[in-house]
């Protein structure tokens, strides 16, 4: 057993999750491959969304994978960071918008 919860080599073993549940594993990976195909959104746009989401859910495997994918696709450093700021703004906004709830409650409590 590893000393760490996360090992970068495990990313390459992602496919092995199908070993214990082949049918669902196959369905998931087929779906995953379809999602990232060029569609109404370009593969480039999807890579940037994935990169931003990866940082939101703070998955080190996803950050590794989609940073590499973005670089490979010729996405510039400024574009990648800007995508993260979108994620950051939504995360920050999600905290701050609850400030209204806080204000409502505080008003209720205070004279």
């Amino acid at each position, binding site marked *: 057993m590893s000393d760490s919860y996360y090992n970068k080599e495990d990313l390459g073993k992602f496919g092995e999750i199908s070993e214990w549940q082949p049918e669902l594993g196959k369905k998931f990976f087929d779906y995953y491959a379809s999602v990232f195909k060029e569609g109404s959104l370009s593969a480039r746009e999807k890579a940037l969304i994935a990169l931003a989401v990866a940082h939101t859910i703070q998955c080190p495997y996803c950050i590794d994978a989609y940073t590499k994918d973005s670089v*490979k696709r010729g996405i510039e*450093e400024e574009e990648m960071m800007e995508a993260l700021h979108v994620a950051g703004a939504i995360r920050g906004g999600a905290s701050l918008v609850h400030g209204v709830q806080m204000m409502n409650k505080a008003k209720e409590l205070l004279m």
Partner: protein
Amino acid sequence: MKSLKAQKHQLSQTEAQLALLGDNKSIQIPSFKEKLKGCDLFPLRPTQIEVLQINLGKMCNQVCKHCHVDAGPDRKEIMSRETMEACLQALRNSDIRTVDLTGGAPEMNPHFRWFVEQLHRLGKHIIVRCNLTIIVANPKYNDLPDFFKAHGVEVVSSLPYFSARRTDSQRGEGVFEKSIRALKMLNAVGYGKEESGLILNLVYNPSGGFLPAGQEELEKQFRQKLDRGYDVAFNSLFAITNLPVSRFLDYLVQSEQYETYMRELVSAFNPQAAAGVMCRSTISVGWDGYLYDCDFNQMLDLKVATRESQHIRDFDAIALKGRNILINQHCFGCTAGAGSSCGGETV
């Protein structure tokens, strides 16, 4: 920055490179030979010799970090006129239509222009792999765009990215700005303009330890960025995979990416790309006239496996067509994904 050879670096020795590449068991990857056997392509055989790729020398005005030739200003090995004469003789006696001139910077060979003129007289389709910055490196090279035009040369130029950051990190400080100036000079005489018939193709290769994305997608981005940002036009973009040879191999080892990169190449092995590898239709000539299956085998000193025709002065198309192509672990670079060749994707 000096070449690996000038640094007396261990990996400037082909034996050291081959020993590292050959140790596939310690990084737990299969051999290229096994993979070819698995798709009935071993031994790998030529189809037709369509291209003679001639390396005019290792001298270059740039010292790019990924260079598989280990070229640079400190490299003095260049092709002699006598060897060029032997190339012309071989071409006269063969039906090879395309001659692909490479280096180093082939234009730095003092016999370059004479050689191109002779090839033009033979009616060959001439490709020059121009690093762009040579055009602006010295006033004596400023007329290269006109010279290329006068001899119907197809220009193929490396530009790893459409911004300075990634281009300069690979090819040297200021290279992007100089490359744009040179591209504008080529555009000014008609290169890259659709109606001119003068072909200017760009080569993209990744600025790091990763494989290129799809050629079409990259070409679209390059066209948009170069047009909008710099008013530069080109015909096609060739996406090329960096092969683990010479300086790029050193980069992979130094940055501890060698194993990951090799595994990525292996997992992206594509039998269709293997069937279309360029060594099946190309012969590569070294600066000293020796013959190789490709430019990468040339840099690893793996000469063609036919005793009758190891040097351009003994060029024998029939013997060469009957040879087995020499393969090694670096060949995984040409068979990954959509394939990689001097003309970009192969699938």
